[in-house]
Protein backbone atom coordinates (compact mmCIF):
# COMPACT_ATOMS: atom_id res chain seq x y z
CA UNK A 1 0.00 0.00 0.00
CA UNK A 2 1.24 3.44 -0.91
CA UNK A 3 1.38 6.13 1.75
CA UNK A 4 2.52 9.74 1.91
CA UNK A 5 5.24 10.68 4.37
CA UNK A 6 7.20 13.87 4.93
CA UNK A 7 10.75 13.37 3.69
CA UNK A 8 13.65 15.52 2.59
CA UNK A 9 15.18 14.52 -0.74
CA UNK A 10 18.13 12.93 1.03
CA UNK A 11 15.90 11.02 3.43
CA UNK A 12 13.71 9.87 0.53
CA UNK A 13 16.76 8.38 -1.17
CA UNK A 14 17.92 6.62 2.00
CA UNK A 15 14.38 5.26 2.40
CA UNK A 16 14.37 4.00 -1.19
CA UNK A 17 17.78 2.36 -0.78
CA UNK A 18 16.53 0.65 2.37
CA UNK A 19 13.53 -0.76 0.50
CA UNK A 20 15.82 -1.98 -2.28
CA UNK A 21 17.51 -4.47 0.08
CA UNK A 22 20.98 -3.17 -0.66
CA UNK A 23 23.73 -5.66 0.26
CA UNK A 24 26.62 -3.21 0.61
CA UNK A 25 26.93 0.52 1.24
CA UNK A 26 30.41 2.08 1.32
CA UNK A 27 30.26 5.81 1.78
CA UNK A 28 31.92 8.89 3.16
CA UNK A 29 29.89 11.83 4.41
CA UNK A 30 29.90 15.16 2.55
CA UNK A 31 27.42 18.02 2.65
CA UNK A 32 24.71 18.07 1.30
CA UNK A 33 24.71 14.31 0.85
CA UNK A 34 25.44 13.42 4.49
CA UNK A 35 21.82 12.87 5.48
CA UNK A 36 21.54 10.00 3.01
CA UNK A 37 24.29 7.93 4.59
CA UNK A 38 23.36 9.10 8.09
CA UNK A 39 19.76 7.92 7.71
CA UNK A 40 20.97 4.73 6.12
CA UNK A 41 23.36 4.04 8.98
CA UNK A 42 20.37 4.45 11.33
CA UNK A 43 18.58 1.69 9.43
CA UNK A 44 21.66 -0.51 9.77
CA UNK A 45 22.05 0.24 13.49
CA UNK A 46 18.35 -0.43 14.09
CA UNK A 47 18.53 -3.76 12.30
CA UNK A 48 16.02 -2.63 9.68
CA UNK A 49 18.34 -3.73 6.88
CA UNK A 50 20.89 -6.51 6.51
CA UNK A 51 23.32 -4.25 4.65
CA UNK A 52 27.08 -4.47 5.14
CA UNK A 53 27.94 -0.84 5.90
CA UNK A 54 31.58 -0.04 5.15
CA UNK A 55 32.97 3.08 6.79
CA UNK A 56 35.84 4.25 4.61
CA UNK A 57 38.38 7.04 4.91
CA UNK A 58 37.57 8.86 1.66
CA UNK A 59 35.32 8.86 -1.38
CA UNK A 60 38.10 7.31 -3.41
CA UNK A 61 37.99 4.34 -1.06
CA UNK A 62 34.19 4.41 -0.97
CA UNK A 63 33.91 3.91 -4.72
CA UNK A 64 36.75 1.38 -4.68
CA UNK A 65 34.95 -0.67 -2.01
CA UNK A 66 31.72 -0.38 -4.02
CA UNK A 67 33.48 -1.77 -7.11
CA UNK A 68 34.93 -4.65 -5.11
CA UNK A 69 31.56 -5.46 -3.56
CA UNK A 70 29.74 -5.21 -6.86
CA UNK A 71 32.08 -7.71 -8.52
CA UNK A 72 30.99 -10.33 -5.97
CA UNK A 73 27.42 -9.99 -7.20
CA UNK A 74 26.21 -7.73 -4.38
CA UNK A 75 23.65 -4.94 -4.79
CA UNK A 76 25.64 -1.81 -3.98
CA UNK A 77 24.68 1.75 -3.16
CA UNK A 78 26.57 4.90 -2.24
CA UNK A 79 26.11 8.65 -2.29
CA UNK A 80 28.32 11.69 -2.67
CA UNK A 81 28.59 15.36 -3.66
CA UNK A 82 30.99 17.83 -5.21
CA UNK A 83 34.60 17.27 -4.09
CA UNK A 84 33.66 13.74 -3.06
CA UNK A 85 32.59 12.90 -6.61
CA UNK A 86 35.74 14.56 -7.92
CA UNK A 87 37.82 12.36 -5.62
CA UNK A 88 36.01 9.28 -6.97
CA UNK A 89 36.65 10.32 -10.55
CA UNK A 90 39.15 7.64 -11.57
CA UNK A 91 37.15 4.85 -9.94
CA UNK A 92 33.96 5.96 -11.69
CA UNK A 93 35.54 4.86 -14.97
CA UNK A 94 36.60 1.55 -13.44
CA UNK A 95 33.07 0.91 -12.15
CA UNK A 96 31.49 1.47 -15.56
CA UNK A 97 34.20 -0.33 -17.53
CA UNK A 98 34.06 -3.38 -15.28
CA UNK A 99 30.28 -3.22 -15.72
CA UNK A 100 29.46 -2.88 -12.02
CA UNK A 101 25.78 -1.96 -11.63
CA UNK A 102 26.33 0.35 -8.64
CA UNK A 103 23.70 2.98 -7.86
CA UNK A 104 24.94 6.30 -6.51
CA UNK A 105 23.01 9.35 -5.43
CA UNK A 106 24.87 12.51 -6.39
CA UNK A 107 23.60 15.51 -4.47
CA UNK A 108 24.74 18.20 -6.86
CA UNK A 109 26.95 20.84 -5.32
CA UNK A 110 29.42 23.41 -6.64
CA UNK A 111 33.11 22.54 -6.85
CA UNK A 112 35.71 24.53 -4.92
CA UNK A 113 37.19 27.15 -5.08
CA UNK A 114 35.83 29.35 -3.64
CA UNK A 115 34.54 26.77 -1.23
CA UNK A 116 30.76 26.50 -1.41
CA UNK A 117 28.30 23.83 -0.34
CA UNK A 118 25.31 24.85 -2.47
CA UNK A 119 23.81 23.57 -5.67
CA UNK A 120 25.10 23.57 -9.17
CA UNK A 121 25.86 20.76 -11.59
CA UNK A 122 29.60 21.18 -11.96
CA UNK A 123 30.31 18.01 -9.95
CA UNK A 124 28.40 15.61 -12.19
CA UNK A 125 29.22 17.50 -15.38
CA UNK A 126 32.91 17.16 -14.54
CA UNK A 127 32.43 13.39 -14.73
CA UNK A 128 29.82 13.29 -17.45
CA UNK A 129 31.88 11.04 -19.73
CA UNK A 130 32.61 8.44 -17.04
CA UNK A 131 30.34 5.84 -18.65
CA UNK A 132 27.60 5.95 -16.00
CA UNK A 133 23.92 6.28 -16.76
CA UNK A 134 22.92 9.70 -15.38
CA UNK A 135 19.40 10.54 -14.21
CA UNK A 136 18.33 13.94 -12.84
CA UNK A 137 15.42 14.37 -10.47
CA UNK A 138 13.22 17.42 -10.06
CA UNK A 139 12.04 16.87 -6.50
CA UNK A 140 12.13 14.45 -3.57
CA UNK A 141 9.40 12.28 -5.11
CA UNK A 142 11.42 11.78 -8.28
CA UNK A 143 14.59 11.19 -6.28
CA UNK A 144 12.79 8.37 -4.44
CA UNK A 145 11.20 6.93 -7.56
CA UNK A 146 14.37 7.11 -9.66
CA UNK A 147 16.49 5.43 -7.00
CA UNK A 148 14.27 2.34 -7.07
CA UNK A 149 14.23 2.36 -10.87
CA UNK A 150 18.00 2.90 -11.02
CA UNK A 151 18.76 -0.52 -9.53
CA UNK A 152 16.47 -2.23 -12.02
CA UNK A 153 18.08 -0.42 -14.96
CA UNK A 154 21.64 -0.93 -13.71
CA UNK A 155 21.33 -4.63 -12.88
CA UNK A 156 19.48 -5.66 -16.05
CA UNK A 157 21.68 -8.35 -17.67
CA UNK A 158 21.32 -6.49 -20.97
CA UNK A 159 22.72 -3.30 -19.43
CA UNK A 160 25.06 -3.82 -16.43
CA UNK A 161 26.12 -0.22 -16.02
CA UNK A 162 26.29 1.98 -12.92
CA UNK A 163 23.71 4.74 -12.48
CA UNK A 164 23.82 8.14 -10.77
CA UNK A 165 20.62 9.63 -9.44
CA UNK A 166 21.23 13.37 -9.32
CA UNK A 167 19.36 15.75 -7.07
CA UNK A 168 19.95 19.44 -6.47
CA UNK A 169 21.86 20.15 -3.27
CA UNK A 170 19.72 21.73 -0.52
CA UNK A 171 16.92 22.63 -2.96
CA UNK A 172 15.87 18.99 -3.07
CA UNK A 173 18.22 17.30 -0.60
CA UNK A 174 17.17 19.35 2.43
CA UNK A 175 13.60 20.45 1.66
CA UNK A 176 10.82 18.38 3.12
CA UNK A 177 8.02 17.26 0.84
CA UNK A 178 5.14 14.86 1.05
CA UNK A 179 6.55 11.81 -0.71
CA UNK A 180 4.41 8.92 -1.94
CA UNK A 181 6.20 5.77 -0.90
CA UNK A 182 5.22 2.26 -1.91
CA UNK A 183 5.40 -0.73 0.41
CA UNK A 184 8.54 -2.81 0.92
CA UNK A 185 6.64 -5.72 -0.60
CA UNK A 186 5.86 -3.77 -3.77
CA UNK A 187 9.49 -2.69 -4.10
CA UNK A 188 10.63 -6.29 -3.65
CA UNK A 189 8.25 -7.44 -6.37
CA UNK A 190 9.41 -4.69 -8.71
CA UNK A 191 13.07 -5.28 -7.90
CA UNK A 192 13.96 -8.91 -7.14
CA UNK A 193 17.45 -9.67 -5.75
CA UNK A 194 20.32 -9.05 -8.16
CA UNK A 195 21.29 -11.99 -10.37
CA UNK A 196 24.90 -11.37 -11.31
CA UNK A 197 25.98 -12.45 -14.79
CA UNK A 198 29.65 -12.63 -13.78
CA UNK A 199 30.85 -12.56 -10.22
CA UNK A 200 33.91 -13.34 -8.14
CA UNK A 201 33.25 -16.78 -6.74
CA UNK A 202 35.96 -19.15 -5.45
CA UNK A 203 34.05 -22.12 -6.84
CA UNK A 204 34.10 -20.66 -10.36
CA UNK A 205 37.19 -18.48 -10.60
CA UNK A 206 37.23 -15.63 -13.15
CA UNK A 207 39.47 -12.59 -13.53
CA UNK A 208 38.00 -9.09 -13.40
CA UNK A 209 40.22 -6.13 -14.21
CA UNK A 210 42.96 -7.85 -16.21
CA UNK A 211 45.48 -5.91 -18.25
CA UNK A 212 44.14 -5.09 -21.69
CA UNK A 213 46.48 -3.53 -24.25
CA UNK A 214 46.27 -2.14 -27.76
CA UNK A 215 44.90 -5.42 -29.07
CA UNK A 216 41.71 -5.52 -26.94
CA UNK A 217 41.12 -2.21 -25.08
CA UNK A 218 39.28 -0.55 -27.99
CA UNK A 219 36.90 -3.50 -28.30
CA UNK A 220 36.07 -3.39 -24.58
CA UNK A 221 35.40 0.37 -24.73
CA UNK A 222 33.29 -0.18 -27.86
CA UNK A 223 31.12 -2.61 -25.86
CA UNK A 224 30.32 0.29 -23.54
CA UNK A 225 29.41 2.58 -26.44
CA UNK A 226 27.25 -0.21 -27.80
CA UNK A 227 25.38 -0.97 -24.57
CA UNK A 228 24.61 2.73 -24.06
CA UNK A 229 22.43 2.49 -27.19
CA UNK A 230 20.18 0.01 -25.37
CA UNK A 231 19.79 2.20 -22.29
CA UNK A 232 17.08 4.67 -23.41
CA UNK A 233 14.61 1.87 -24.22
CA UNK A 234 15.40 0.18 -20.90
CA UNK A 235 14.95 3.39 -18.91
CA UNK A 236 11.59 3.90 -20.62
CA UNK A 237 10.50 0.31 -20.02
CA UNK A 238 11.42 0.46 -16.32
CA UNK A 239 9.80 3.91 -15.97
CA UNK A 240 6.55 2.60 -17.45
CA UNK A 241 6.59 -0.54 -15.32
CA UNK A 242 7.05 1.65 -12.26
CA UNK A 243 4.07 3.69 -13.45
CA UNK A 244 1.87 0.59 -13.44
CA UNK A 245 2.45 0.15 -9.70
CA UNK A 246 2.49 3.77 -8.63
CA UNK A 247 0.61 5.76 -11.25
CA UNK A 248 3.82 7.75 -11.81
CA UNK A 249 5.24 6.80 -15.19
CA UNK A 250 8.64 8.03 -16.27
CA UNK A 251 10.16 8.71 -19.68
CA UNK A 252 13.50 10.10 -20.79
CA UNK A 253 12.35 13.68 -20.94
CA UNK A 254 9.25 15.42 -19.69
CA UNK A 255 7.58 18.21 -21.60
CA UNK A 256 5.08 20.88 -20.74
CA UNK A 257 3.02 22.91 -23.20
CA UNK A 258 4.96 21.78 -26.24
CA UNK A 259 1.84 20.95 -28.31
CA UNK A 260 1.48 24.58 -29.36
CA UNK A 261 4.64 26.23 -28.01
CA UNK A 262 6.81 28.41 -30.24
CA UNK A 263 9.59 28.76 -27.72
CA UNK A 264 10.77 26.54 -24.90
CA UNK A 265 13.21 26.37 -22.03
CA UNK A 266 15.19 23.18 -21.45
CA UNK A 267 16.84 22.29 -18.15
CA UNK A 268 17.86 19.61 -15.66
CA UNK A 269 16.73 19.16 -12.08
CA UNK A 270 14.65 21.33 -9.78
CA UNK A 271 14.61 24.38 -12.06
CA UNK A 272 12.10 22.51 -14.22
CA UNK A 273 9.48 23.00 -11.52
CA UNK A 274 9.92 26.78 -11.46
CA UNK A 275 10.04 26.90 -15.26
CA UNK A 276 6.75 25.01 -15.48
CA UNK A 277 5.00 27.37 -13.06
CA UNK A 278 6.25 30.41 -14.98
CA UNK A 279 5.39 28.86 -18.35
CA UNK A 280 1.90 28.08 -17.11
CA UNK A 281 1.41 31.70 -16.07
CA UNK A 282 2.74 33.01 -19.40
CA UNK A 283 0.58 30.58 -21.36
CA UNK A 284 -2.48 31.86 -19.54
CA UNK A 285 -1.62 35.33 -20.82
CA UNK A 286 -1.43 33.89 -24.35
CA UNK A 287 2.32 33.43 -24.74
CA UNK A 288 3.22 30.21 -26.63
CA UNK A 289 5.89 28.85 -24.29
CA UNK A 290 6.83 25.38 -23.10
CA UNK A 291 9.33 23.47 -20.99
CA UNK A 292 11.54 20.45 -21.70
CA UNK A 293 12.97 18.70 -18.68
CA UNK A 294 15.76 16.26 -19.39
CA UNK A 295 15.59 13.33 -16.97
CA UNK A 296 18.06 10.99 -18.66
CA UNK A 297 21.20 12.97 -19.40
CA UNK A 298 23.56 10.07 -20.17
CA UNK A 299 23.06 8.45 -22.55
CA UNK A 300 21.74 11.62 -24.17
CA UNK A 301 18.17 11.08 -25.42
CA UNK A 302 18.94 12.51 -28.87
CA UNK A 303 15.90 11.07 -30.63
CA UNK A 304 13.39 12.28 -28.04
CA UNK A 305 14.90 15.75 -28.06
CA UNK A 306 14.91 15.99 -31.84
CA UNK A 307 11.20 15.08 -31.76
CA UNK A 308 10.39 17.39 -28.85
CA UNK A 309 11.85 20.55 -30.40
CA UNK A 310 10.15 20.03 -33.78
CA UNK A 311 8.17 23.14 -34.63
CA UNK A 312 9.85 25.36 -32.02
CA UNK A 313 11.17 28.72 -33.25
CA UNK A 314 13.50 29.33 -30.32
CA UNK A 315 14.93 27.18 -27.55
CA UNK A 316 16.82 28.39 -24.49
CA UNK A 317 18.98 25.76 -22.84
CA UNK A 318 19.78 26.31 -19.17
CA UNK A 319 23.10 25.07 -17.81
CA UNK A 320 23.76 25.19 -14.08
CA UNK A 321 27.50 24.87 -14.59
CA UNK A 322 30.37 27.03 -15.76
CA UNK A 323 32.41 25.52 -18.57
CA UNK A 324 35.07 28.17 -18.87
CA UNK A 325 36.23 28.51 -22.43
CA UNK A 326 33.70 26.12 -23.97
CA UNK A 327 31.49 27.30 -26.85
CA UNK A 328 28.45 26.63 -24.61
CA UNK A 329 27.41 24.77 -21.47
CA UNK A 330 27.32 20.97 -21.60
CA UNK A 331 23.55 20.50 -21.98
CA UNK A 332 23.44 23.17 -24.67
CA UNK A 333 26.42 21.69 -26.52
CA UNK A 334 24.71 18.29 -26.48
CA UNK A 335 21.45 19.73 -27.77
CA UNK A 336 23.20 21.60 -30.56
CA UNK A 337 25.08 18.46 -31.58
CA UNK A 338 21.90 16.40 -31.45
CA UNK A 339 20.17 18.86 -33.79
CA UNK A 340 23.05 19.48 -36.17
CA UNK A 341 21.83 17.11 -38.88
CA UNK A 342 18.24 18.39 -38.74
CA UNK A 343 17.22 20.75 -41.53
CA UNK A 344 14.68 22.56 -39.40
CA UNK A 345 15.73 23.46 -35.89
CA UNK A 346 15.03 26.23 -33.41
CA UNK A 347 17.34 29.17 -32.74
CA UNK A 348 19.29 28.12 -29.65
CA UNK A 349 20.45 30.34 -26.82
CA UNK A 350 22.39 29.15 -23.78
CA UNK A 351 21.83 30.51 -20.28
CA UNK A 352 24.35 29.86 -17.51
CA UNK A 353 22.68 30.30 -14.12
CA UNK A 354 22.56 29.37 -10.48
CA UNK A 355 26.25 28.75 -9.77
CA UNK A 356 27.08 28.01 -6.16
CA UNK A 357 23.40 27.89 -5.23
CA UNK A 358 22.48 31.33 -6.61
CA UNK A 359 18.70 31.27 -6.68
CA UNK A 360 16.86 31.33 -10.00
CA UNK A 361 13.63 33.21 -9.41
CA UNK A 362 10.33 33.07 -11.31
CA UNK A 363 11.17 36.63 -12.46
CA UNK A 364 14.49 35.40 -13.93
CA UNK A 365 12.64 32.68 -15.78
CA UNK A 366 10.01 35.11 -17.04
CA UNK A 367 12.82 37.24 -18.50
CA UNK A 368 14.36 34.12 -20.05
CA UNK A 369 11.05 33.15 -21.70
CA UNK A 370 10.50 36.72 -22.93
CA UNK A 371 14.03 36.81 -24.35
CA UNK A 372 13.33 33.56 -26.18
CA UNK A 373 10.10 35.02 -27.59
CA UNK A 374 12.08 38.06 -28.81
CA UNK A 375 14.69 35.77 -30.43
CA UNK A 376 11.87 33.92 -32.21
CA UNK A 377 10.45 37.29 -33.34
CA UNK A 378 13.65 38.75 -34.77
CA UNK A 379 14.69 35.38 -36.18
CA UNK A 380 18.30 35.38 -35.02
CA UNK A 381 20.40 34.77 -31.91
CA UNK A 382 22.06 37.97 -30.75
CA UNK A 383 23.88 36.63 -27.71
CA UNK A 384 24.55 32.88 -27.81
CA UNK A 385 25.43 32.70 -24.10
CA UNK A 386 23.84 34.75 -21.35
CA UNK A 387 24.69 34.70 -17.66
CA UNK A 388 21.55 35.15 -15.58
CA UNK A 389 21.64 36.29 -11.98
CA UNK A 390 25.25 37.43 -11.79
CA UNK A 391 26.40 40.97 -10.93
CA UNK A 392 28.73 42.32 -13.61
Amino acid at each position, binding site marked *: MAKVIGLTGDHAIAYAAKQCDVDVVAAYPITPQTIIVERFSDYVANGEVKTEYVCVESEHSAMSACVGASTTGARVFTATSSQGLALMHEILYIAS*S*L*RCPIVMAVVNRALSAPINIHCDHSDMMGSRDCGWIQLYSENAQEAYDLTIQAFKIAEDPEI*LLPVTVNLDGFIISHCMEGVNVISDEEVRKFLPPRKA*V*YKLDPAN*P*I*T*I*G*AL*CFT*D*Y*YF*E*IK*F*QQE*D*VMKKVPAKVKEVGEEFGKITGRSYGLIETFGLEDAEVAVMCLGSTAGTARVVADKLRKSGKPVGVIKVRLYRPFPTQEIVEAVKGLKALTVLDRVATSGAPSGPLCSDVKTALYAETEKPLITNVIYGLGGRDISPENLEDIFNDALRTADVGRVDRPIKYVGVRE
Partner: protein
Amino acid sequence: MSEAEKPGSKSLPIGGILVKPGSSIEYKTGDWRAFRPTLDEKKCTGCLICWIYCPDSAIIRKPPIVAINYEFCKGCGICANECPVKAITMVEEGA
Protein backbone atom coordinates in the same frame (compact mmCIF):
# COMPACT_ATOMS: atom_id res chain seq x y z
CA MET B 1 47.06 -14.66 -33.54
CA SER B 2 46.61 -12.27 -36.46
CA GLU B 3 44.49 -9.12 -36.02
CA ALA B 4 41.74 -10.62 -38.18
CA GLU B 5 41.53 -13.77 -36.04
CA LYS B 6 41.12 -11.89 -32.76
CA PRO B 7 37.57 -11.74 -31.37
CA GLY B 8 35.61 -8.49 -31.78
CA SER B 9 33.64 -6.51 -29.19
CA LYS B 10 30.48 -8.59 -29.66
CA SER B 11 32.11 -11.95 -28.99
CA LEU B 12 34.37 -10.83 -26.12
CA PRO B 13 32.97 -11.20 -22.58
CA ILE B 14 31.86 -7.81 -21.23
CA GLY B 15 34.24 -5.56 -19.36
CA GLY B 16 37.36 -7.48 -20.39
CA ILE B 17 36.44 -10.18 -17.88
CA LEU B 18 38.38 -13.42 -18.21
CA VAL B 19 35.68 -16.01 -17.76
CA LYS B 20 37.86 -19.09 -17.37
CA PRO B 21 40.83 -19.52 -15.05
CA GLY B 22 44.33 -20.30 -16.23
CA SER B 23 43.94 -18.56 -19.57
CA SER B 24 47.17 -16.57 -19.26
CA ILE B 25 48.88 -19.60 -20.81
CA GLU B 26 47.12 -18.58 -24.05
CA TYR B 27 48.43 -15.03 -23.92
CA LYS B 28 51.70 -15.32 -25.78
CA THR B 29 53.77 -12.46 -24.37
CA GLY B 30 56.58 -13.45 -26.73
CA ASP B 31 54.95 -11.02 -29.21
CA TRP B 32 56.25 -8.13 -27.12
CA ARG B 33 59.92 -8.99 -27.56
CA ALA B 34 62.29 -6.49 -29.18
CA PHE B 35 65.49 -8.25 -28.03
CA ARG B 36 65.92 -12.00 -28.06
CA PRO B 37 67.98 -13.78 -25.42
CA THR B 38 70.23 -16.31 -27.14
CA LEU B 39 71.90 -19.06 -25.18
CA ASP B 40 75.39 -20.28 -25.77
CA GLU B 41 74.88 -23.89 -24.70
CA LYS B 42 78.64 -24.46 -24.48
CA LYS B 43 79.07 -21.70 -21.91
CA CYS B 44 75.98 -22.51 -19.81
CA THR B 45 76.85 -24.27 -16.53
CA GLY B 46 73.24 -25.07 -15.62
CA CYS B 47 73.43 -22.99 -12.42
CA LEU B 48 69.73 -22.02 -12.85
CA ILE B 49 70.24 -18.39 -11.79
CA CYS B 50 68.41 -17.22 -14.94
CA TRP B 51 65.62 -19.72 -14.21
CA ILE B 52 65.13 -18.13 -10.78
CA TYR B 53 65.26 -14.56 -12.06
CA CYS B 54 63.13 -14.75 -15.21
CA PRO B 55 59.91 -12.86 -14.35
CA ASP B 56 57.89 -14.78 -16.96
CA SER B 57 59.03 -18.31 -16.17
CA ALA B 58 60.30 -18.43 -19.74
CA ILE B 59 63.49 -20.27 -18.86
CA ILE B 60 62.89 -23.98 -18.98
CA ARG B 61 65.00 -26.54 -17.12
CA LYS B 62 66.65 -28.92 -19.58
CA PRO B 63 69.25 -30.76 -17.51
CA PRO B 64 72.08 -30.39 -17.50
CA ILE B 65 71.48 -26.88 -18.91
CA VAL B 66 68.44 -24.63 -19.68
CA ALA B 67 66.35 -23.56 -22.70
CA ILE B 68 64.28 -20.47 -23.46
CA ASN B 69 60.56 -20.55 -24.22
CA TYR B 70 60.16 -17.86 -26.87
CA GLU B 71 56.35 -18.03 -26.79
CA PHE B 72 56.46 -16.26 -23.45
CA CYS B 73 59.91 -14.64 -23.19
CA LYS B 74 59.22 -10.90 -23.49
CA GLY B 75 62.87 -9.98 -23.92
CA CYS B 76 63.51 -8.06 -20.73
CA GLY B 77 67.16 -9.10 -20.61
CA ILE B 78 67.25 -9.93 -16.91
CA CYS B 79 68.56 -13.43 -17.62
CA ALA B 80 71.44 -12.06 -19.70
CA ASN B 81 72.27 -9.58 -16.99
CA GLU B 82 72.23 -12.17 -14.21
CA CYS B 83 74.05 -15.02 -15.91
CA PRO B 84 77.42 -15.30 -14.10
CA VAL B 85 79.21 -16.75 -17.11
CA LYS B 86 77.62 -14.50 -19.75
CA ALA B 87 76.07 -17.46 -21.56
CA ILE B 88 73.08 -15.36 -22.70
CA THR B 89 73.35 -12.50 -25.22
CA MET B 90 70.49 -10.19 -26.20
CA VAL B 91 70.15 -9.98 -29.99
CA GLU B 92 67.80 -7.53 -31.69
CA GLU B 93 64.74 -9.32 -33.16
CA GLY B 94 64.88 -9.49 -36.92
CA ALA B 95 68.50 -8.43 -36.95
